């Protein structure tokens, strides 16, 4: 008799408000779903609930204070935000950053990528119902937070870089700890794979869900793993090398099908590639100063520039204009990767079921602090 009841479900269109208070919208994202039964016919993405006006605020802070604000955007990858901002200002001021500082920045950024992917993996798996992976991933993320705490004293919002270099040199013995962490992480990535990669339920929940072709993903402005998952070779670290990435060997994993499972595989592979980069960087860490020649009073010449780096979420770009006279930027603009990836949600979601919506929010890996800024 239940076949009939199952067939009866598709009667009326139902408007379902998902969020802003919902366990799996990863923050305060609101989706207005129009459902036919449980199938999504249309979705309107509503955001801005944590809009703090960081762009406007930055136009009234001086150049150094802004580093602290960038922490608050993608709060699970604060160091990457710092890096992007500092590099942009350095580009604008044409400051040379010492090699050691660039190496350390790379290590920090890659550690941050692992931490961010850990959080993504945990929440994504949790959304699909694999509760244990969440705690395993957080266990490893904790190790990274410990490393960061030892380096800069903070665990979430690091404020760990300065324009022209770094505020602090590495504590003694830190590199050994990073090496030890890399060894641990290697085996842990295997553990995640054992739990999920060949799990039939996981495969059924992610294979063929949210498929997007390479050209479509490019046109929609997706970036980072969602773009690479569709087989588009685009990684700012390779294409427009910054920090010290041009000195390291690493691969850019690409997907073939462009579905949720591919994006999952890519991020898992990025764990390994990040570990690889960190190992190379720690092994080849040069001696030298950590701060470049930067004037006491920062005042870039009038002009504007756009500079992008590869954050864990994708292309994190800063567009900064200086009027050349004041000690704060005239225009400060962030190109938030989460925002652009979230734009891909609607085409991905339409036609799928409510349960897939949750999986698709997870696969795009959005952080609402960055979407709303």
């Amino acid at each position: 008799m239940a076949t009939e009841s199952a067939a009866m479900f598709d009667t009326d269109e139902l408007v379902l408000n998902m969020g802003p208070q919902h366990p799996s919208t990863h923050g305060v994202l609101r989706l207005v779903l129009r459902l036919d039964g449980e199938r999504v016919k249309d979705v309107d993405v509503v955001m801005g609930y944590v809009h703090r006006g960081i762009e406007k605020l930055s136009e009234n802070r001086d150049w150094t204070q802004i580093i602290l604000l960038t922490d608050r955007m993608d709060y699970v990858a604060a160091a990457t935000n710092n890096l992007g901002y500092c590099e942009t200002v350095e580009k604008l001021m044409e400051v040379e950053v010492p090699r050691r500082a660039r190496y350390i920045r790379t290590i920090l950024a890659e550690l941050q990528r692992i931490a961010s992917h850990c959080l993504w993996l945990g929440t994504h798996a949790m959304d699909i119902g694999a509760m244990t992976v969440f705690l395993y991933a957080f266990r490893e993320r904790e190790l990274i937070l410990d490393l960061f705490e030892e380096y800069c004293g903070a665990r979430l919002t690091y404020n760990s870089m300065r324009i022209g270099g770094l505020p602090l040199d590495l504590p003694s013995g830190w590199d050994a700890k990073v090496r030890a962490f890399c060894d641990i992480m290697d085996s842990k990535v295997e553990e995640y794979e054992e739990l999920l990669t060949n799990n039939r339920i996981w495969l059924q929940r992610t294979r063929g869900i949210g498929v997007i072709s390479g050209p479509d993903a490019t046109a929609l402005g997706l970036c980072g793993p969602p773009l690479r998952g569709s087989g588009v070779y685009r990684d700012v670290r390779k294409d427009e090398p910054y920090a010290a990435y041009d000195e390291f060997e690493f691969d850019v994993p690409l997907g073939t099908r462009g579905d949720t499972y591919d994006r999952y595989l890519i991020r898992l592979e990025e764990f390994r590639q990040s570990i690889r980069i960190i190992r190379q960087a720690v092994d080849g860490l040069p001696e030298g100063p950590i701060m470049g020649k930067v004037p006491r009073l920062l005042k870039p010449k009038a002009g504007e520039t756009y500079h992008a780096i590869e954050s864990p979420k994708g292309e994190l770009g800063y567009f900064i204009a200086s009027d050349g006279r004041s000690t704060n930027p005239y225009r400060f603009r962030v190109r938030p990767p989460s925002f652009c990836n979230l734009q891909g949600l609607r085409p991905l979601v339409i036609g799928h079921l409510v349960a897939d919506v949750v999986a698709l929010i997870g696969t795009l890996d959005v952080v609402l602090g960055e979407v709303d800024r």
Partner: protein
Amino acid sequence: MAETIAFYTLSVLILGLAVLVVTAKNTVHSVVSLVMTFLCVAALYVVLEAEFLAVIQILVYAGGIVVLYLFVVMLVNVGRPPEEHRDPRRLSVLGLGLAGAMLLEVAGIVAYSYSRSTSSVTAPAGPSPVQGNTEELGWLLYTDYLIPFELASVLLLVAMVGAIVLARRDL
């Protein structure tokens, strides 16, 4: 003694809940009353030592058919209440009268038949090779009533196909 108490309690419950079924304003309340009625009827079967039927009553009626009713009620419960529209040609009072006449008639038949009954209709079936209510019933169904039984299963199959065809929109 126990049977008497059980009978009267259950009778009151059955009739009261049945009245609720036909009088409740909210259809969902109606359906819930119906479930309760059926459960009480199942209890009555237990009193009558028909355990198998009692279980079947719960399983099929309460657990199956009425769930279907509940689904349909929930699906069509939107929009205007169905009792709003009044057909002038409809004569509810007449219906009530007819039902009363019906009750009188049934009561008459009952009274008449018992006034002259000799209860000599006892015609036990042939000795069953098995013991116990369930086993005997099964024996009966699979021997004497095999063809009706098969027909009933075909009927159910046809009903299932028909219901699916009716309920689907894209057919």
